[in-house]
């Protein structure tokens, strides 16, 4: 059943493929080849990851949700499918960003041997996973809001939620400062560097899981 839903979403997205290629190429050309080459992997990753969310808009335009609920599929499977798609897109975006940046960087170096760009694989890997983390954070916030308010309204609510999260973050920082607690930033940075990829991946998994639980709770009783 999940396979059927995934197929439906992928077929929906296939009408996107031309614009997707243009966007990726445009970003690639604009960024890759400059000193900001590592941004390429982040931006490509974010674009691919975000596109998976547009399947919600396709469902909304076609008013598919009501029909899908008449098929032999549970609400749990409907929610789960959206997360599988989102996570798949994040992984694909990260991989594409990594490979394309590496590829274009090397091609540029071949074409312009007098103006070499230094591509560090480790840094590229970190930025790619950093980009994946960013997109998974956006997805984890946006998917439940779309389930709650719909694809169009959900977008506005998402910005409100992000705004409040930033305020809360600043508030916590302020309180820590007020309480006189000092954070050893250097130590924190060191730890992050040592484990950063593992920590980021674990954090992503936790974010997706919590987000899934919230989405399911919302959709369980939603009426179409």
């Amino acid at each position, binding site marked *: *059943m999940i*396979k*059927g839903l995934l*197929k*439906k979403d992928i*077929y*929906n997205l296939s*009408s996107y493929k031309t614009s997707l290629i243009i966007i990726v190429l445009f970003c690639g050309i604009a960024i890759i080849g400059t000193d900001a080459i590592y941004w390429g992997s982040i931006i490509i990753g974010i674009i691919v990851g975000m596109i998976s969310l547009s399947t919600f808009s*396709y*469902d909304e*335009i*076609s*008013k*598919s*949700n*009501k*029909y*899908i*609920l*008449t*098929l*032999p*599929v*549970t609400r749990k499977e409907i929610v789960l499918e959206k997360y599988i798609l989102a996570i798949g897109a994040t992984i694909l975006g990260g991989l594409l960003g990594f490979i394309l940046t590496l590829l274009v960087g090397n091609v540029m170096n071949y074409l312009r041997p007098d103006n070499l760009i230094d591509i560090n694989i480790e840094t590229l890997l970190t930025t790619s996973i950093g980009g994946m983390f960013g997109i998974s954070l956006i997805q984890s916030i946006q998917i439940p809001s779309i389930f709650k308010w719909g694809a169009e309204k959900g977008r506005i609510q998402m910005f409100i939620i992000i705004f409040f999260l930033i305020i809360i973050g600043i508030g916590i920082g302020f309180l820590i400062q007020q309480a006189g607690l000092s954070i050893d930033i250097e130590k924190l940075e060191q730890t992050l560097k040592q484990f950063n990829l593992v920590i980021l991946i674990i954090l992503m998994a936790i974010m997706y899981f919590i987000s899934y639980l919230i989405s399911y709770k919302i959709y369980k*009783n939603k*009426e*179409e």
Partner: protein
Amino acid sequence: MNNIEIKNISKKYDGFLLDKISFNVPEGSIVGLIGENGAGKTTTIKAILNIINSNGTVKIFGKDVKQNEKEIKQEIGVVLDDSFLSAYLTPKHINSVMKDFYKNWNEDKYNKLLKQFDLPGNKLVKDFSSGMKMKLKIATAISHNPKLLILDEPTSGLDPVVRNEILDIFRKYIEEDETRSILLSTHITTDLEHISDYIIFIDNGKIILNGQTNELLENYGIIKCNKEDFSKILKEDYISYKKGKYQYEILTTNKEKIKKKYNILSIDKPSIEDIMLFYIKGER
């Protein structure tokens, strides 16, 4: 044996109440749900399909729909007026998606139906005319040979030729297997006169009429008379009346009885639409 049994279904919205609806859809029958727009037809269908939360019980194939939803839905084909899988898929895509949903999906049957309906396999659904879209929805709904079809306004917005074609499909579908049944809602009541076995009339969230189509059409009658004759007819002998410029029209549920009782020579045979209008607009 009933394919659908619903008991005391209630659902409250702002300004609307679906009020303790109960009815059955027997095997081998086509049941028509009629009523004005906003009367509660779609809400009833949504409650049957468990798309909305409602009070009361819904049994399909003798099983509670809330507890056996996935299993039951394998055996149901659904057409909704305003909703389908996606407007951005082609009929070929739909085949590939649907075979993952239904164990009994019959690809050959689906392709044959596409051919029969003249539907192109590689065109996006959004570019189809409304008649083509409806035919595709119906082909999709019957290609896993479901025991039960639930159709919400399957003929609305279609021209008479396409409507007849579609009604033919339903007729054949029932004839193929007598354990099958169809529940269809419509506000185009003439369609039902041709194909339905039972008619359920919902008005303002309540069932006000539930009976066999033949009996309704045979027994109900419209008496046309002047004011003087009208005043002689007792209130208990009619459902409602309409006052025209020159005459009164009266709807009765038992035309033979009335004919004898008041010595009336001619009584018109009403259409389902006439009956519906008398119930909604008539005076008591």
